[in-house]
């Protein structure tokens, strides 16, 4: 089975600014993939190129094994970062229109529109205009627009932004169902908790370059072995003397030790066991947030260029 989306050495520049540089991506069919990165990292540009809205300067993009183009566009449901709905158009008409644009016959598009409005608890608003809806409702409507043509691939840019917890969980429920149906979902977000909860694999990009890519569990495992948490009773000073420890943070009921390397962990246990009373020893799996922050910070310090600093830094 071909990959749902594949990018090979894709580059895109806007004038002097390199938005995306030599990007390789491989999104397996049926996976939920997170495209993560800080603002301005090239996520939206990458997605627009996948959507065939922008042309890459170099490189190749394949959708379901075929070069990206007009026809492949129709295989993807796209929810852009900012809401794009006709303010003065009625909600069901709007759904029908966008469905038709994705090759769904009008009557069928209308029927499916009604289904999704009901599913997303918007049925009462079917004959209202979009500018009468709250932001959260508009977001749900945009989600319905994305799903209407029932495409095998979904690209969702900041899906849960602007949703209250109740609606966010309603949307997640739908997403899990879609994953169950075998759809490929590409998530673009800078909200790590969303990615953590839903994604199988992630790709972290900054300044148009890929920093990390792969299975989420493996990435976490790779990052995780350098911090241990110890709950203990006894003299805290021993912790400072333990071998292979870079940094010790003492809290009320526990301590966190940053190790020089993952291999140091057994060493630390051997050293501490006779000296303090260890109640709990845990190798911490870092949150995606931490991975994000460390990786991006590391990349920025190694590639810091003055002209790319934000305006307030000058």
């Amino acid at each position, binding site marked *: 089975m071909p990959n749902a989306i594949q990018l090979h050495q894709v580059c895109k520049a806007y004038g002097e600014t390199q938005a995306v540089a030599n990007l390789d991506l491989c999104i397996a069919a049926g996976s939920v993939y997170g495209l993560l990165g800080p603002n301005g990292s090239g996520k939206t540009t990458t997605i*627009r190129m996948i*959507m065939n*809205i*922008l042309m890459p300067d170099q490189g190749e993009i394949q959708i379901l094994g075929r070069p990206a183009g*007009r026809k492949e*566009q*129709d295989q*993807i449901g*796209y929810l*852009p970062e*900012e*809401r*794009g*709905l*006709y*303010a*003065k*158009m009625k909600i069901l008409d709007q759904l029908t*229109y*966008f469905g*038709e*644009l*994705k*090759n769904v016959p009008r009557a069928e598009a209308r029927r499916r529109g009604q289904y999704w409005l009901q599913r997303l608890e918007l049925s009462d608003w079917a004959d209202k205009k979009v500018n009468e809806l709250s932001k959260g409702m508009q977001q749900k409507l*945009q989600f319905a*627009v994305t799903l209407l043509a029932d495409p095998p691939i979904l690209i969702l840019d900041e899906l849960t932004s602007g949703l209250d917890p109740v609606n966010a969980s309603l949307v997640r429920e739908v997403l899990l169902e879609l994953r169950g149906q075998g759809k490929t979902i590409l998530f673009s977000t800078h909200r790590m908790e969303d990615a953590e909860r839903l994604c199988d694999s992630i790709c972290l990009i900054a300044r148009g370059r890929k920093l990390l890519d792969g299975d989420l569990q493996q990435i976490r495992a790779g990052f995780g072995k350098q911090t241990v948490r110890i709950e203990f009773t006894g003299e805290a000073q021993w912790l400072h003397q333990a071998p292979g420890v870079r940094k010790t943070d003492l809290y009320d009921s526990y301590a966190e030790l940053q190790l020089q390397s993952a291999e140091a962990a057994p060493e630390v246990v051997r050293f501490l066991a006779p000296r303090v009373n260890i109640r709990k020893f845990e190798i911490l799996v870092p949150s995606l947030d931490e991975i994000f922050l460390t990786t991006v910070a590391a990349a920025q310090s190694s590639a810091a260029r003055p002209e790319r600093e934000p305006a307030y830094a000058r």
Partner: protein
Amino acid sequence: MPVKLLIVIRREYLQRVRSKGFLIFTLLFPLLMAGYIAFIISISHSGSRQQYRIAVLDESGHLFAPLSARLEKIKFHQNSQFLLTSIPDTGGTAPALAGMVTAVLRKHFDGALVISPGLRRVRYYARDVTNFYVLGKLQSAVGSVIQRQRLLAAGLPARKLAKLLQPVNLRQYKVTRNGAKADQGQTFALAYVLSTLLYIAIIIYGISVMRGVAEEKTGRIAEVVLAAVDPFTLMLGKIIGLGAAGLTQFAVWLGCVGLVIGYSRMSSNAALQHIPHLGPAVFLLLIVYFILGFLLYATLYAAAGAIISNEQDMQQTQMPITLILVLSVILIPAVLTSPASFKAVLLSEIPFFAPVLMVTRLTASHPPSWQIGLSLALMLAGIVVIIRFAAKVYRIGILMTGKRPTLPELLRWLKAA
């Protein structure tokens, strides 16, 4: 035609035609047409019933009777009439005149006429000396009565005078292929109405295209739509869809003009008989000029819509385009006064002016077919060139955020791709 283009056209058309504004504006025009008929009737005979009361101080002593007989006979503005009152000059000219002026000021009279003893000097005092119609009648009546008096004094027999002093009236006729036809400004008015109509229809729908594109851009709708159709389809669909809505409205309006003309031919009302007859060919050409003119301007407006990023920009960006269109309206009178002059022909061949000015010429005179054909060909060529440029600007501009591009930047866009 590609299916997706049709879907876009359908949305644009229905969204427009179903709006309240469309209905109101469609109905507004027939009111304008009613105004036109009112104008036609007013120039032949109209106005409210009125008496022009004029005090006459006749120092010659024998002019009042013939003058009042003559003036009171004249009926003008349907039911208006002169009413003359003789003022005795007891106590000298100066006090009598002062009394008359006071009376005019107090609105006892509309005017005061003072005739000197030797008939050499006639003075007219009035609050309003700009009513040329009244002044003209007064002038000709006083003139002919005095001339008559002078001729009588010179010894000509009274019975010959009536014939000799027969007034001469200049009548205007418009020469057309269907023969000469009396015209008192109706052609002028109709040419003005139709040319302005083209202008209004083009500007309204052109600016709608710009607003629609700007809405899709600033509302980020473009990104959703462009995930399903290519930019050119979206631009073309908007232009054609809104153009079709414009055409619907324009056709209704032209229908009104046609009805008026048809009615005027059957009507027994003499005034309405003066409405110029436009053949079906002229109507067809009006529609063709609307379509081409709209395409020309709407494409420019679409490009303008794609480069603006907020409401404030809109005014500034549309200005150059709108100015060209307005300029063509400003030129209507110049073309109308001599529709076949070299200047008029030249102006009406320029693609940007043709939709308005050729229509002026079509209504006011009979431009040769080659001139019509040439202007259509030039407009078509203009449209092809402009669509090409506009599509480039549109494709880049529609997804661009941030500030409006400068002119050099725009030129770079045009060179790229």
